[in-house]
């Protein structure tokens, strides 16, 4: 059938001669893949960095050359103590994600599903999420000391709101016509919930988790830079006090990579688990 919508250009059976002399096959190749753009962006960043140091715009004492930083990063990557601290950071991140999702998702689904709860709760949510988690740093230190618990509690506070809100909105935005469709097939409340409401809300929940994942990493690292006793952040502060900017930047670079890996990981999982969210966004519905 000719009316199937395909995302890639359909190849004609007979290649048309190319007037400009450019091989047709090359022009028919699909759009540039995302990773190519990503690499170009990173390459540009390194070139600018190199230029900034070489021209003396920033002195090499405060910003080392990219090549030196890369070497240090390589050393850190095989350094067992550094890797242990990375594991500490990731552990705090994971605990925060698990705890916040375990509470935020079911609560968000419930608040979104029952209209009686929705309005009163959304005002609380909007108030809660406008307070930055750093406001609670002193209290968290008093309550939990400088260990993992403190980092995790701050991160949970920061990511609880996006997770909760996205679950609430996901449920609220369930298409009424899809519910009517289910009801016309004789489905009761439970079936409507599992067969319509949850799958409808899933892409939104996934978005909430993706946002939360970056935020959680940022909060955990900030807590580490501001005084926690374990994690990548503390390594960076230690090198800073030892006046080793090359290691400081190497650490920052690796943290950046970690954040990027988490982001792309989440994107990938999202595309595999809830492909319909993506597809609907793309078709502009």
């Amino acid at each position, binding site marked *: *059938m000719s*009316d*199937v*919508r*395909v995302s890639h250009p359909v190849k004609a059976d007979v290649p048309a001669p190319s007037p400009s002399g450019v091989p047709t096959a090359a022009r028919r190749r699909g759009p540039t893949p995302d990773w190519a753009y990503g690499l170009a962006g990173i390459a540009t960043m390194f070139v600018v960095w190199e230029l900034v140091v070489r021209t003396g715009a920033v002195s090499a004492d405060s910003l080392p050359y990219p090549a030196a930083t890369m070497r240090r990063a390589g050393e850190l990557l095989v350094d067992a103590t550094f890797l242990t601290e990375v594991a500490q950071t990731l552990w705090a991140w994971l605990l925060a994600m698990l705890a916040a999702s375990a509470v935020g998702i079911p609560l968000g689904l419930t608040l979104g599903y029952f209209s009686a709860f929705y309005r009163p709760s959304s005002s609380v949510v909007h108030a809660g999420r406008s307070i930055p988690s750093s406001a609670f740093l002193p209290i968290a230190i008093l309550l939990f000391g400088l260990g993992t618990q403190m980092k995790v509690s701050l991160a949970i506070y920061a990511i609880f709101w996006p997770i909760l809100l996205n679950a609430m909105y996901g449920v609220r935005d369930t*298409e009424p*016509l*899809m519910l*009517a*469709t289910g*009801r*016309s*097939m*004789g489905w009761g409340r439970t*079936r409507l919930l599992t067969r*319509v409401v949850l*799958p409808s809300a*899933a892409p939104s929940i996934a978005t909430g988790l993706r946002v939360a994942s970056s935020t959680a990493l940022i909060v955990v690292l900030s807590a580490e830079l501001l005084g926690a006793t374990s994690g990548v952040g503390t390594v960076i502060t230690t090198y800073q006090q030892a006046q080793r900017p090359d290691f400081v930047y190497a650490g920052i670079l690796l943290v950046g990579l970690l954040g990027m890996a988490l982001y792309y990981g989440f994107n990938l999982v999202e595309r595999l688990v*809830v*492909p*319909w969210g993506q*597809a*609907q966004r793309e*078709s502009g*519905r």
Partner: protein
Amino acid sequence: MNPVTIQPHQPGPGTDTPMLAVQELGKSYPSRKGDVLAVRSIDFAVHAGQFVSVVGPSGCGKTTLMMCIAGLLPITTGNVMFRGERMSGPRDGVAVVFQDYSRSLFPWLTVEKNVALPLRDRGLPRTEIRDRVRESLEMVGLAHAAALHPWQLSGGMQQRVAIARGLAVRPEMLIMDEPFASVDAQTRASLEDLLLKVWAETGTTVLFVTHDIDEAVYLSDRVVVLSQGPSVVVEDLPVELDRPRDQIATKQTALFGELRENVYSLVMASQRRTSLSGDPH
């Protein structure tokens, strides 16, 4: 009663008990400024195997009426009787194809699974479900698209999936709300003919809602004309055009022209009446 060419596969209990009887149906929506009347009072009946269209101007309450008849909206006044029994909610044997098909298909399911949905929970063996899904997809010419997701299809194809889903349960009655309103003219014509073919093959009773007068006359055994909202029935018109119908030949007949003009002037007159007398509510 005009001759029905297709014998119903499940004849009603008595020959004079209609499959569907809508009695003084009225519906108002609650709103902050008091209730808004969408449907004033509708009366009509559909006999088994018939193809009946409901036409009316946009906003006159067709979707509301259809949702009430399908048991998806509580009715305010009157009754909907199905085979002589009062209907109080959605029921087996009645399938609905909605106006906005793109939002009534589930994007997380493949075409095949969307069509299989109404067959679940019925204790049917897996093979039976598979066969029926295949059969209904074949009827609408979409067997090849079974494994695709709705978003990978064109609008016309999505509408055919929605129709296939309606057919999969082998419904006694198929209620369709402006199913072809948002597809282009050619697709529309071919979907109309497809629907007539499927109707002839299955013997399903069809209640077809549309604002398109030509479409209503072309498809139906009877056309129920509604006034502007809050709607009442202006006329219940038999359409005694020969079947099978043909997009060109049927539409060129004198009778088709006459019926079309008749329905058109009824709709216009009802609009004039309501606009001259203001809002009588």
